[in-house]
């Protein structure tokens, strides 16, 4: 039998990604044109016009290396993982588990035992709400979320509250779209069992002071879950430094495959938590009298997972690390500044969310034009944005709008994209004049 191809397509041009730290040697500027060439879909047309993709907050496009890794895995290395004694299964297992190690390194987890593979951030939060929640929350207890949460960080907690007779409390936001920390301080109390807030808002772009949020909760002995779905492709992350207890994110928002994501959990907490879903892979022994469970992280991973997605996720992490998240962050900061300055020249625009710390998301209303009409007209111009409530209906209620138009930026967007956006918005205004 031929030895299956080794499953390392990862880094661009086959080189190890440059590991550059502040003060390192690589001070070359961020080359966005080079990055764009990595993303085949960005070359396509939409309605006959070159695509301007400004919906990465919903899901990001994928670089060739990730697509290639999926293809290589399926065509040359595919089999089910864990417990296969044949070479193919061992190689697949190794590739899948290597991704877990890469994820651990990416976020500076203590070990890969703290990396639970899930379908995405939503499943990660549900896992905590069920497993940790059922064990630790009782009648009369309180769970703290914020007004800017995505529905995925609201509804699982509402389920928990219904099961347990607990109460969901909400940290309010101000009119800039920033959390009101004084209110947070007031809400944190002896009844608070967990704080679940987003690292970065998907509808406002607000980057929350997560270190402070964690510190304040920990002073009261309360654990903190951070929803990192939006933040993960934009910031360097160190969960140990941040000291959060859980961190949830999805691969597809960081240029990776759909259907795979991570729940990071502090090992001690994960150890204490009961399994969530039962099935194959999460057990040690099964008899009809008693079943014992697998060690971390497998205890929480019942059934055949998204194996190819997991393998592609490893390549995704290599790609992201290779881009250098510090350079990405600096580039995106400048792009956001340019976008806000450019769009501000259109007098009919009203921004929803003007937080002082913000990243990659521009939500807006256009006077006299409903967001859905904006979206359709922009589509005709080849510009893809998202319109609607962005799964944050409480945020819409706060700002008194049924929906917003949202342009979101990623590392492959350019100032030209912003100019095209501004031009298309002017067209929308023209149609509705």
């Amino acid at each position, binding site marked *: 039998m031929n030895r299956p191809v080794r499953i390392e397509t990862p880094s661009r041009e086959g080189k190890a990604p440059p590991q550059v730290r502040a003060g390192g040697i690589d001070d070359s500027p961020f080359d966005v044109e080079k990055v764009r060439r990595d993303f085949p879909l960005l070359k396509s047309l939409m309605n006959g016009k070159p695509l301007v993709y400004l919906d990465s907050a919903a899901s990001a496009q994928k670089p060739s290396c990730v697509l290639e890794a999926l293809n290589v895995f399926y065509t040359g290395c595919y089999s089910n993982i864990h417990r296969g004694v044949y070479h193919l299964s061992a190689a697949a297992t190794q590739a899948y588990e290597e991704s877990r190690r890469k994820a651990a390194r990416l976020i500076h987890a203590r070990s890969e035992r703290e990396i639970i593979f899930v379908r995405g951030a939503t499943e990660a939060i549900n896992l905590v709400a069920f497993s940790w929640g059922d064990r630790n929350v009782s009648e009369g207890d309180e769970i703290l979320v914020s007004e800017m949460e995505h529905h995925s960080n609201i509804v699982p907690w509402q389920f928990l509250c219904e099961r347990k007779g607990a109460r969901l409390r909400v940290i309010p936001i101000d009119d800039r779209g920033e959390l009101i920390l004084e209110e947070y301080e007031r809400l944190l109390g002896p009844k608070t069992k967990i704080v679940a807030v987003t690292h970065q808002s998907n509808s406002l772009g607000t980057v929350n002071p997560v270190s402070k949020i964690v510190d304040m909760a920990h002073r009261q002995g309360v654990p903190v879950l951070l929803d990192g779905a939006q933040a993960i492709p934009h910031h360097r992350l160190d969960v140990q430094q941040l000291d959060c207890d859980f961190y949830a994110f999805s691969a597809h928002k960081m240029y990776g495959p759909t259907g795979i994501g991570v729940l990071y959990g502090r090992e001690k907490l994960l150890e204490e938590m009961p399994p969530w879903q039962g099935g194959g892979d999460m057990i040690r022994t099964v008899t009809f009298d008693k079943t014992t469970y697998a060690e971390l992280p497998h205890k929480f991973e019942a059934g055949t997972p998204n194996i190819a997605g997991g393998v592609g996720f490893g390549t995704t992490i290599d790609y992201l690390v290779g881009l250098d998240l510090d350079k990405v962050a600096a580039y995106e900061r400048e792009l956001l500044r340019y976008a806000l300055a450019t769009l501000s020249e259109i007098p009919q625009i009203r921004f929803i969310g003007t937080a002082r710390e913000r990243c990659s998301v521009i939500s807006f209303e256009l006077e006299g034009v*409903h967001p859905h009409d904006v979206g359709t007209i922009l589509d005709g111009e080849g510009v893809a944005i998202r319109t609607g409530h962005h799964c944050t209906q409480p945020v819409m209620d706060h700002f008194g709008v049924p929906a917003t138009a949202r342009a979101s930026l990623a590392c492959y967007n350019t100032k030209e994209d912003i100019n095209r956006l501004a031009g298309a918005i002017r067209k929308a205004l023209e149609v*509705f004049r």
Partner: protein
Amino acid sequence: MSDMRDLYQEVILDHSRKPRNFGVLNGDSIEAVGHNPLCGDRLSVYLHVEDGVVSGIAFDGVGCAISTASASMMTEAVKGKTVEEAEKLFEAFHEMLTGDPSSEGDGSALGKLSVFAGVREYPVRVKCATLAWHTLKSALDGDGEKASTE
């Protein structure tokens, strides 16, 4: 922009800017609420039905240009019609936007409402155009339940 003009025809823009029969009806009226969960749009349709005829109709709520114009033109189209005729219009309108394109139904019955034919080319916007009609239908059926485009 020629494509967009097919969708956003002047008549549609006019009705979206100045919706007709916008507001509530005086006195007891049949009311139904429509909701498009996709975009958060909500609208209410109010009806007076006398002797099987839609003698009065109004709507209010917030929505995009397509849904507002569609609601506005719907109120003009069904006022004075019998309940049966109004339901036929609902079916014809629905058929125009969602039916089998090869069946080429008799669009003539729709009159002015055929300006919405272009919406067909924008599948995600079809629900915007049909929201008011679904709401009307649930008001006519008198089931009092909320209409939804889902």
